């Protein structure tokens, strides 16, 4: 019996094999896109446990909806869309329920990070400062920033992933840029 070569198969073949009940093919899909989903989830939610849960939910949702994947768009676009939607759902859920009980970390003050500190961790402090500024953007703005900046998608691809018109992406990018400029005004 000829052993199936998962590593050199294209995405559509892997999807077909998964739909035929071959879970090893789906495992290969996870291997290919795990880091991409991690970048999106961690970019949207921060480096926290929920980001990993969102990653798991993303692949589980993908598995459940593979039969609806028609192959019109790339599989990576399809996965990215699920990851963004799952992250946005998580943000909304957190906001809706937990704001009843405590003030969330989103309110963390940027002044808590000492940019002048000369403690050998300045690079980390600056990275935290910039990431905190991104996390302060509205979720819709944050998603376009993550897709453009962290994932490197073009405006057209970003619009395709978010399923919104190009004009909406451009307007969100422009507003996100203005907000980031203001948030990062002390970074010199």
């Amino acid at each position: 019996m000829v052993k199936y070569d998962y590593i050199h198969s294209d995405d559509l073949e892997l999807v077909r094999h998964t739909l035929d009940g071959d879970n090893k093919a789906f495992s290969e899909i996870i291997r290919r896109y795990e880091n991409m989903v991690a970048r999106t989830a961690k970019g949207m939610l921060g480096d926290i446990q929920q980001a990993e849960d969102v990653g798991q939910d993303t692949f589980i949702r993908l598995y459940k909806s593979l039969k609806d994947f028609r192959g019109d768009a790339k599989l990576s676009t399809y996965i990215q869309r699920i990851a963004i939607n799952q992250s946005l759902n998580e943000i909304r859920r957190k906001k809706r329920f937990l704001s009843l009980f405590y003030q969330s970390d989103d309110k963390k003050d940027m002044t808590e990070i000492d940019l002048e500190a000369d403690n050998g961790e300045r690079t980390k402090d600056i990275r935290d400062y910039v990431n905190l500024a991104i996390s302060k953007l509205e979720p819709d703005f944050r998603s376009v920033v993550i897709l453009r900046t962290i994932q490197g998608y073009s405006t057209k691809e970003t619009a395709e992933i978010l399923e919104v018109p190009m004009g909406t992406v451009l307007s969100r990018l422009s507003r996100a840029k203005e907000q980031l400029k203001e948030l990062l005004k002390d970074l010199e």
Partner: protein
Amino acid sequence: MKPEKLKDLLLRSLTSDLGSDERKVLEKELLTDHRFSEGFRDRVMKDIASGKILVNGKREMLRLFDSIFMRVAIPGAAAVIILILSLLLNQGSLSYDTLLGIDNEVDDVLISLLSE
């Protein structure tokens, strides 16, 4: 990398296409760790194999319950203690003097000390 350079790269990346070198620099500067923890793939496959995908909503509910419980438990416990104390004080089973660790005789001792 100088902070102003990072800021410039970040802002430029939003409205124009960066070159691959600049993009790599930006990714390196912004991302702390872009991987999930060890065994991520196995955990997802295990969930799928065990049919947990059918109760995905339940996992979300449990996670939410955990988060809420952690934040409600401490204030809740404090509220119960205050309630018990106030009931005992109202019933007279417990006095403020007992709570503060002083007894009735202390007043007399203090008066006599001050009058000497």
